[in-house]
């Protein structure tokens, strides 16, 4: 693994070719840089690839359904992941059940693979919750909540990984964390996701400093999709992003982010390093946001059609489909996957539209874990206020009085006393 820890490129060496196993036509054609990771693909075959393909197509169908729901006014906003499913699916399958995942907010495929119901994500964007799933429920695969303040989750991930490390030390009766010490085997890792735009924030940089300092069992993944809303990655950085990690003393590579095999192989290797005390790693996945940043965005204002078409030809779903065909997978499979994906997307649509709005007093329920007098006071006030409308309604029934604006009972009574008549 000398290539991974050798900082020579920082001193002027050329950037190695991004790691790739599948070329754009879906042929197995590993780059020279991929060879050292090829062992991670041993035992992975067509059955795995068909599952990965299914994951991508189902996520894409869900994604398209959510865009449609937003256009119909049913979601407040939608964040498409179209085009980025390749690296997401490979990395998600590279994780082990005991690992923890800290996403940004565009990691729908990873959520799905770790066990989070896609409906949970839709609930967030419909405005029913700021969360969407219970992170403490093992069924949700240790997939943490989406974080909308860019990069904040990188520090939570590093703290979480530090906790994994401290737990391992405790289990070994080791009471010291010395500056500059080697890593500790933890048997579990943390993987955190962010993007090329976020790489300019302070938080991920501080997170890398802490990760390197404590040798946390952690893998940073930057999905470089080339655009931070309207600003190209060339505005964020003059150096390939993976080189920044090398500067922090963290092993780092660049992969073809639309090749799920590359993501799987490198993800496996880096997670294994993390779990065995070899320290943190950093994967820059070169991909492309084929869709808009969000449904509020209009990429035609800042991107050339040529560029989009180039990347549409590199669509990770098409690439893996082509590869599956080279492995002898036939048309009925693709049709069945398509139909299942559409069926699932329709189920999400039906389910999200049937979700009731949250109860008004739910906004008070979890501000604090322990009782809080101000919260209690305001919750009770709201309850009285709401019920006063019901009382006013009851008093009005049978009356011919026309009241344009409903008044709470108390206010209505006061108006009467003061001779204010509508």
């Amino acid at each position, binding site marked *: 693994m000398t290539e991974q820890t050798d900082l020579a490129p920082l001193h002027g060496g050329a950037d190695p070719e991004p790691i790739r196993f599948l070329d754009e036509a879906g042929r197995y054609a590993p780059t020279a840089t991929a060879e050292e990771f090829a062992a991670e693909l041993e035992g992975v075959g067509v059955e795995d690839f068909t599952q990965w393909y299914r994951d991508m197509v189902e996520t894409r169908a869900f994604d398209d359904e959510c865009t449609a729901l937003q256009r119909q006014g049913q979601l407040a906003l939608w964040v498409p992941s179209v085009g980025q499913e390749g690296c997401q699916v490979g990395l998600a399958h590279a994780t082990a059940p005991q690992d923890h995942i800290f996403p940004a907010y565009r990691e729908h495929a990873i959520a799905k693979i770790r066990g989070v119901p896609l409906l949970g994500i839709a609930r967030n964007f419909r405005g029913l*919750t*700021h*969360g969407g799933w*219970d*992170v*403490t429920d093992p069924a949700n695969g240790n997939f*943490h*909540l989406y*974080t909308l*303040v860019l990069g*904040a989750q*990188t*520090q*939570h*991930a*590093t*703290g*979480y*990984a*530090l*906790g*994994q490390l*401290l*737990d391992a*030390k*405790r289990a070994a009766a*080791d*009471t*010291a*964390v*010395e*500056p500059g010490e080697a890593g500790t085997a933890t048997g579990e890792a943390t993987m955190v996701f962010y993007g090329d735009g976020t790489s300019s924030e*302070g*938080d991920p940089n*501080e*997170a890398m*400093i*802490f990760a390197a*300092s404590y040798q946390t069992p952690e893998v940073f993944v930057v999905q470089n999709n080339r655009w931070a809303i309207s600003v190209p990655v060339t505005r964020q950085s003059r150096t390939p992003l993976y080189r920044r990690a090398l500067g922090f003393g963290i092993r780092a590579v660049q992969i073809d982010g639309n090749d799920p095999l590359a993501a799987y192989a490198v993800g496996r290797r880096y997670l294994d390093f993390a779990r065995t005390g070899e320290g943190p790693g950093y994967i820059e996945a070169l991909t492309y946001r084929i869709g808009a940043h969000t449904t509020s965005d209009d990429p035609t204002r800042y991107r050339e059609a040529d560029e989009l078409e180039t990347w549409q030809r590199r669509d990770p779903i098409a690439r893996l489909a082509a590869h599956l065909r080279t492995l002898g997978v036939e048309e009925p499979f693709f049709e069945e996957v398509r139909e299942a994906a559409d069926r699932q997307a329709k189920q999400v649509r039906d389910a999200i539209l049937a979700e009731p709005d949250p109860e008004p007093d739910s906004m008070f*329920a*979890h*501000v*604090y*874990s*322990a009782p*809080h*007098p*101000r919260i209690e006071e305001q919750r009770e006030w709201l309850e009285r206020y709401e019920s006063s409308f019901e009382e006013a309604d009851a008093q009005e029934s049978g009356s011919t009085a026309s009241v344009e604006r409903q008044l709470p009972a108390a206010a209505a009574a006061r108006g009467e006393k003061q001779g204010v008549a509508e």
Partner: protein
Amino acid sequence: MSEIQLLQERTELPLVKAINEGLRAAMAADESVLLMGEDIGPLGGVFRVTDKLQAEFGSARVLDTPLAEAGIIGSAIGLAMRGYRPVVEIQFEGFIFPGFNQIVTQLAKLTNRHEGAIPMPVVIRVPYGGHIGAIEHHQESPESYFAHTPGLRVVSPSTPHDAYWMIQQAIASPDPVLFFEPKSKYWQKGEVDPAAPSAELHRTRLARAGTDCTVVGHGAMVTTLLQAAEIAESEGTSLEIVDLRSLAPVDYEPLLASVRKTGRLVVAQEAQGGASLGSEIAATVAEHAFYSLQAPVLRVSGYDVPFPPARLEGVYLPDADRVLEAVDRTMHY
């Protein structure tokens, strides 16, 4: 590691040592308690609050961190998600702002975002306030920013006994607590009784009973208010001094009871007065005790300017005379 000796008997201690003993007791009682911060290991923190704790509990429980407040607080959040109870030291109040985003958009909101599934037992210790003749960013009182933020609890002890107990209560809280330490009183001594828990974390303390006017403050200001009460008494005015202790939530019932008795209230704080905790208290008391008030609630605060250079701190910071000036105005309204 050196032997851990917990405080056993009533002892006269400076406030800095009382917090140190409180941290020691909390760490001994609960293995999930971790300390994190800059220079808190061999040095014991720039104010020595964590003195000897790393030698006693090991560097895996008293973590000297890289110099980055957002990173410290953000990592503490991740550790809390893992089940730890991190106690973070911010070196001076002015340096909390690089970590402000992690506190306000994450720490304060995460339990709510998780719909209650994950508590956030993180304590952020912040030496704050003036009277130490220091350079810029080392004398300020930013408590109101945090008291304004739902999801946070904000407290500030004024005595060594409260400091010893309140730090343990804050660590036991399942919610994030901003723990503002009056750094100018770090070396002020008082009796600490490890067998007599002080009031609950979010209760006020009656610092001095009186009949003519209620004066409320917290942290270092309480000492100033007690001085003012001495002077007032010699002039024939009886001040009731309420030590707020908890800035969010505020324990209003005892404060309102006091105001209903005296009919007058002066709110004193080192912070600038605009949109401040003092404003909030004045408004709430006016709302709930309007018919008991003999005069408007008055605020005594720092001026609405950046904390001035140290040579002017005596002009900026409310002292006993400024408090008494307000008392005079309310008494003669």
